[in-house]
């Protein structure tokens, strides 16, 4: 990372030196676009409905990928089993039956697109399954000098066959708005204006938010004397991270990879965590293991991978690690607004048009005074979901 920074700094600066306005943006996206099939296929050793995602590359200026629809997808093994896949949502193909990848068997992915082109993967096998031995959390200062918590993995393959590991994680954390109140304004009638103060109908105090890892996390043990993953940090959260405001949970998935898959992901990661492509990185087309059957020169992106999976979950409370520090600020500026019970029109306007939430009812002389704040500051559903996940443990 640091090295990349240097490059960018140097090269940009070198140019900037000799000419002021010499770097300019140019419109380039449309002319050189190549429409390429992208195959994201990962069959694990869990017995489940396996998934294959097909999409197309998209133009630099476009929002997102176009799904590859209507393709016929199947996985065959060298024991003459054929697992057919069906498209459930656009570009997402789910196996018709649940199956698990097995050791010592060759698998191949076959795709025929709607326009009749056929693609096949190279034959792949399942690497040595290796479980996560331990997932643990420690308070650390990371390489950038930030204080926070690191999530570490230990794993050991006694057979000595698993060298390459890839990790994904799924984070779940609580959203607890600072100004939750158990009452709400209920609009009974707008004309004539009539309101009532009622209990809140749904859970709005504690919500949960899910996030998935979006970077490639890989690790290898080839340079070590043993195939032992030790203290490999999968995720780091700074103490100021909002995810750590309240209770946080992470589910870490460990995938064992073949050398080819590792190489592919490694290359891919070099490209995707680029801050700038103006660097000493060798650009070029990333070759995977999917080939066109008819035209060997056609570029196909992606990889068909068989991978053992192992996962572990851990929960963290902020106060367990940072009892002394104050919570990070809630991600909103919470201003207060007051309305009086005797002006129900204004109250209706506040909750219906301005989207405000009641956070206190103060007894006045004759009329009650209502205090409002923004919805985000009082209702956790703005940022998360009030459905408590099954795995959640308080």
């Amino acid at each position, binding site marked *: 990372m640091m090295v990349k920074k240097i490059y960018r700094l140097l090269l940009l600066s070198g140019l900037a030196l000799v000419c002021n306005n010499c770097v300019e943006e140019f419109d380039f996206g449309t002319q050189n676009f190549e429409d390429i099939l992208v195959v994201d296929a990962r069959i694990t050793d869990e017995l489940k409905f396996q998934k294959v995602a097909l999409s197309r590359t998209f133009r630099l200026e476009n929002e997102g990928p176009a799904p590859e629809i209507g393709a016929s997808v199947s996985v065959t093994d060298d024991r003459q089993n054929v697992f057919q896949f069906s498209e459930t949502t656009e570009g997402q193909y789910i196996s018709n039956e649940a199956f698990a990848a097995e050791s010592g068997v060759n698998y191949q992915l076959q795709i025929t697109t709607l326009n009749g082109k056929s693609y096949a993967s190279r034959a792949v096998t399942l690497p040595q399954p290796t479980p996560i031995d331990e997932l643990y959390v420690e308070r650390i200062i990371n390489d950038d000098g930030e204080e926070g918590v690191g999530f570490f993995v230990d794993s050991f393959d006694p057979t000595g066959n698993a060298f390459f590991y890839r990790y994904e994680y799924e984070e779940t954390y609580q959203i607890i708005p600072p100004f939750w109140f158990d009452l709400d304004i209920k609009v009974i009638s707008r004309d004539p204006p009539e309101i009532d103060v009622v209990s809140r109908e749904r859970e709005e105090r504690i919500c949960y938010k899910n996030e998935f890892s979006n970077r490639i996390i890989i690790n290898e043990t080839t340079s070590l004397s043993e195939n032992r993953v030790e203290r490999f940090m999968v995720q780091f959260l700074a103490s100021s991270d909002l995810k750590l405001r309240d209770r946080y949970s992470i589910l870490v998935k460990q995938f064992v990879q073949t050398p080819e898959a590792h190489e592919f992901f490694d290359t891919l990661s070099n490209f995707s965590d680029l801050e700038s492509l103006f660097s*000493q990185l060798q650009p070029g087309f990333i070759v995977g293991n999917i080939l066109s059957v008819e035209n060997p020169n056609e570029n196909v992106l992606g990889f068909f991978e068989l991978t053992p999976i192992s996962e572990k979950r851990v929960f963290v409370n902020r106060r367990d690690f940072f009892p002394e520090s104050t919570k990070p600020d809630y991600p909103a500026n919470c201003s207060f607004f007051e309305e009086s019970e005797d002006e129900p029109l204004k109250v209706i306007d506040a909750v219906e048009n301005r989207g405000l939430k009641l956070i206190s009812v103060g007894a006045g002389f004759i009329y009650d005074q209502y205090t409002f704040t923004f919805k985000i500051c009082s209702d956790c559903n703005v940022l998360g979901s009030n459905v408590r996940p099954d795995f959640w443990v308080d």
Partner: protein
Amino acid sequence: MRKLLYTLIFLLYQVTFSQNQTTISVNFTDASIGEVIQEIEANSNYHFYFVEEWLGDKRVTGNYNNVPVQEVLNAIFKDTVLNYYLLDNNEIVLIRNNVIYDELPENFFGREKVVENTVTKRKKNINPSFYVEQKSSTRTETFRIGKEDINSTRERYSLSGYVTNFRTGRPIGNLAIVVSGTSIGTQTDKNGFYQIDLPPGQSILETSSVGIQDSRKRVIIYNDGELDFELDESLEQLDEVILEGKVSKNVTETITGAEKIDVEESKNIPLVLGERDVFKVATALPGISTAGEGSAGFNVRGGKSDQNLILVDDAVIYSPQHFFGIFSALNPFSIEDVTVYKGSIPAEYGGRLSSVFDIKLKDGDTKKFGGEASIGPVTGNVVLDIPVIKDKSALQIGGRGAYANYILRSLDDESLKDSEASFYDANVKYTHRFNDNNKLSATGYISRDDFSITSDSLYIYNNRLLSLKWDHTFNDNNKGSLVLYNSEYKFNIEFDGGANNNFDLGFSVQETEAKLKMNHAFNDKYSLDYGVSSKLYSIEPGRIDPFDEQSIVTPLAIPEERALESAAFISGKLDFTEKFSVDAGFRFSVFNALGEGVQRIYEDGRPRSEATLLETQEFDKNEVIETYTGPEARLSLRYLLRPDLSIKASFNNTFQYIHRLSNNTTVSPIDTWKLSDLNIEPQQANQYSLGLYKNFEDDLYELSIEGFYKESENILDFKTGAQILLNETIEAEVLQGEGEAYGVEFLLKKTKGKLNGWLGYTYSRSFIKLDSPFPEERVNNGDFFPSNFDKPHDFSMVANYKFTKRFSLSANFVYQTGRPVTFPVGNFFFNGSETVVFSDRNRFRIPDFYRLDLGFNIEGNHKKKKLAHSFWTISIYNVLGRNNPFSVFFVTEDGEVKSLQSSIFSIPVPSITYNFKF
């Protein structure tokens, strides 16, 4: 006066000679010829016509009584160049050199007429020296030699003399003297003495020699005579000598693809920011190009930019350019000459595949103190000649510094206002001539570039070299030289952002070489060069250290690499016949990668990666890790079809054991070098070339057409996605593939005249193939694809027009096909994240490049006694304001990919430089 005389002479042929019987009596003692003539005029009715200056200061004594005037005149004009002619009416015309013929030579008016007009027959063979002044476009000094003897029938007169260095007074040996348009030629011996037989009348003598500026002299010879001349090695020449490219060397030289860059030429090429640059001249020649402006390094005949051996006084210089290649890192005033070998490389050079740039610095003046200086918008430059012991030893010191900081300050961009950029270089050369047989030279050179763009980073790179050379002449047939040098290149990045991640990152490469070269001359036609050399490399491939105590950067140092590269070479040139000449050489190089070090051993037949790593082997200090050997043949043939037309062919093979790790097209100052080892094999190339060379109109025009085909092996490239800097297992990122390049180069030069310059055009292609049984090691499906510097069309024009002695205009135009690039062709979503997808390697090209520069030179006046000679150069770079993309790149900003193109000088850049010499 002279004109009048000629008119007279031409009228004379109608007058028939009649012997005048009048006698005279005169007495004179130690008188000048003028006084004698006055005396004769006073004592007779003879009347003389002459030019006062011709008479000279000869003193004569004589006593004559009643003798014919001829007797007196014969006596007093003896041992002078004067002749006389008696007219009928007692008038005597004095003539310098010439005899006035009272009859015309045979066939003067064509055959018939002459036969009729022949009145008297004297001798059968009259070889009169007629000289009609020509309106010559070049200013060539004219010398009249000897006194014409009317009775001479000789077809050749002998001219001899000494040639000395105008500045140092030392004799100039080995100076080639040829008569333009003929096959007459000779060479000076070590005392500077020459002897040449010339046909009567006018001859144009042309001289050329290494280190001495080419000269041209018009000699009108009437009889045997002597002519000593002084030649200069200086930058600025006054009228006497017109500079000129190697005369007919184009045609007669045996080797192909050698270009000598006249340092003087660089003066006439428009400048960027007022800086003269011999490398800019080089890139205007066919077959040599750069990746674009603002990119350091050269691509010679489809070769990578690390394949050029750049020598400064025999020492390798790793980074000969400042400031991203915009300025040459060598002081233009200190350079004596530059020879570029792009076709046949002499066997004494090796270690790089594509070319040799042999740069020689000037020796100091042993006679008098002098110097040159220039002041330009970006740099100031001064060179001083300091005699140490008169006629024996001298020092030349050169220094140059940039004051670019003010440019940065003046920029509007806030972020750049605090930036700094500066560079300097300094060179010193000491020469000591112990005697005629021993000469010692020592050259020292340093250069440094500093950039600080943001306040938190400082980036520095340095060159440093020191070379010692001892030239020794054993006897007339044997001489030798011993060279010892050390050269270092390093860069450093200091990052001081104030936080705790400050670091200091560094790289360095160092080499020390000893080279012994001997020359044995069997005879004039055959001589042999032979020798041995050995160099020790030591590379610090990269280290990163915390910059201060607070820094938490983890120190990392990639272990040092060492190696020994040794070679023995022999080469000779043999002229089988006048027409057929062979230059053959053989070089045998041995490369030993040395410990201490760690080498990773990978499984055979599998792609190198962490997965196939078998073991790491440790080597002790000086233990040989791996040995490579390279037999290298260098062969050139030349056949003269006609004196001004030749055909040449050559074969050249080369090995290279050190590789620059760069996936950028251009040389970036942070590129590191890597030695061959167990995993990285040496690069190798074979080049075949064939060319036709023709000179027209007395060498006024030189035309050459040269074709080449080059195949290479183990060319370094990188896997897609490779990271290079601070990579401990670089061999797992490297791919070695085949290269192929071919092309045709046309060059038309006009070497002299008011308008001179050249047109060059090259059509060439350069490809590379990276194939492997394993998909991750295959690029573009394992097919040949255009290399980073494949630019099929390359046209360049350099033209100078001299209005007067003092004003000249120069222009420089370049057109090149845009170079190949790998573009992003879209985005894709994979495993939850968005990534840019790139095209196949080098599938696209950046737009074509073209640029026109203009320069105007104003020379100061040419009074000889002036304290300093000066000239002004005004130039405009990129007159057309063409926004030539230098590179195209992509930045991910807020999750969006932006495509940007950068150019260095998108607007016309004017500059003015003042140069003076004292």
